[in-house]
């Protein structure tokens, strides 16, 4: 039994489909999942008064993998990611990143990770250059000017560099936010709907940059998205949540086969209705 399988919440999987089985296989083109994981979510729960936003969630993200966290609105994705970031303290269970409990030891690992979310903005009154400088210094980036130059080139930010961030278009803001998320060359990258406000062309452009970064750095990426095409393109593995629980997980193609669906989009809709 692989490490991933041990963390599968069988109880919920069975509720969704009697045919549902954990992901199989250990392909040679991916890092070994039996290594210490980059992210380990263990019995994670979050209760707000009487409501369980996250209810007994377990999964791991092996180092170097890109894992998609999917689910409809209110499924518990953002709360789960917030607990992995240490912004929210779990009611029970724990979220570990690079071996550190994010509720109690987050300061030991924050410089090795970063995140991007459309719900969190960069200071709008600062120019793009000023924002990158400030966050670069906060993360203690060595050779900051050179790193910013790299990001300017990678994300084609040259023409907006001295413009005020708040006055950029949604697409430009996303590019700047992703550039900020990569400023410290993070080992672990958390992305909350990274292409939410982009047109298909720009979204594909951002995905290509993320793929290139992941390949170059060997980074671990956990992303939440409503865009199933994006998830199929980027993710090695997918965790689907509904009503605060994990209802299925596996490789995108395996999930489609398992639920006898054409693609992940159909799996998502099927699970949203059944679970």
């Amino acid at each position: 039994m692989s490490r991933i399988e041990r963390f599968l919440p069988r109880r919920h999987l069975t509720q969704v489909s009697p045919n549902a089985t954990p992901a199989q296989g250990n392909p040679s083109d991916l890092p070994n999942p039996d290594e210490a994981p980059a992210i380990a979510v263990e019995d994670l729960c979050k209760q707000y008064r009487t409501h369980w936003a996250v209810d007994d969630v377990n999964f791991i993200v092996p180092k170097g993998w890109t894992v998609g966290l999917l689910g409809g609105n209110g499924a518990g994705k953002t709360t789960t990611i917030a607990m992995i970031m240490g912004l929210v303290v779990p009611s029970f269970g724990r979220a570990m990143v690079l071996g550190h409990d994010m509720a109690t030891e987050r300061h030991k690992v924050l410089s090795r990770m970063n995140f991007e979310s459309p719900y969190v903005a960069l200071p709008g009154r600062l120019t793009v250059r000023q924002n990158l400088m400030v966050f670069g210094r906060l993360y203690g980036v060595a050779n900051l000017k050179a790193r910013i130059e790299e990001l300017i080139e990678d994300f084609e930010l040259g023409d907006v560099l001295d413009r005020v961030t708040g006055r950029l278009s949604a697409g430009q803001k996303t590019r700047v936010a992703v550039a900020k998320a990569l400023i410290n060359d993070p080992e672990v990258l958390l992305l909350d709907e990274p292409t939410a406000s982009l047109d298909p062309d720009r979204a594909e452009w951002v995905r290509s940059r993320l793929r290139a970064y992941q390949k170059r750095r060997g980074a671990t990426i956990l992303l939440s998205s409503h865009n199933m095409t994006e998830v199929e393109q980027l993710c090695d593995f997918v965790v689907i949540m509904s009503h605060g629980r994990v209802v299925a997980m596996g490789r995108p193609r395996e999930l489609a086969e398992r639920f006898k669906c054409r693609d992940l989009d159909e799996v998502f809709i099927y699970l949203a209705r059944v679970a």
Partner: protein
Amino acid sequence: MTQSLNRIAAMTARYYYILRSSSLRLLEIIYWPAMQMLVWGFLYTYLYDSKSAMASTAGLLLGAVLLWDVLFRGQLGFTFTFLEEIWSRNLANLMMSPLQPFELAASLMLMSLIRLVIGTLPVMLLTFVLFGFNVFAMGPGLLAFFLNLVLTSWAIGLIVAGLVIRQGFGAESLAYSIMIVLLPLCCVYYPVAALPLWLHPVAWSLTPTYVFEGMRAVLLDGTFRTDLMIECLALNAAYLGMGFTTFVALLQSARHKGGLLTMGE
């Protein structure tokens, strides 16, 4: 240590960029203290010329106005700089970065000091030019008064910032209103003796009371009350410690409540 200083410098630079980006904001820092000083200044002129019994104490009024402004603007500078993070929905970015709470607090303190110098120095100059009242005539005591008032303003600013993190925008109005509660109790314009006896312990538990009593001692008797300033400094150290502890506790409470990610929405 170096990394810590670097992060404090980064945050201070961030706030400085904002300040520099808007001349209106810069003007606003000077505008309110200047307007207040003009009103009280003209009253001072009237009292000074009136040969009334109050004329001899007219200088106390301007001294009190100036020092009260140090306390009030110090706290506003601290809190408003922090609120900038809430308004720009940037708090989660900061909380996810390696920035430690004490580093954030230190940068807010630095910025409060910068705003205070920008806002207060021109007004002090204006007071001298227009009304002939030289606040620097208080001598080295002025530095002690300034230091103690600034420390108090930071302690209160930390608590207000913590409450905003914990309670959200509902607590934002505290930024404007909390100092007004202190105004009658810390005896800005009158001595402690003017308060009813049962309020004396309350007044003496507030650090600004020591400063304003100290100021009156300098302006009326020409004596600098070292004892008052030392007591005030000790109290301030305790209040600053309590302020920071409260800030961290409220921050931790917000992490339990789950409000940090959506703060500002």
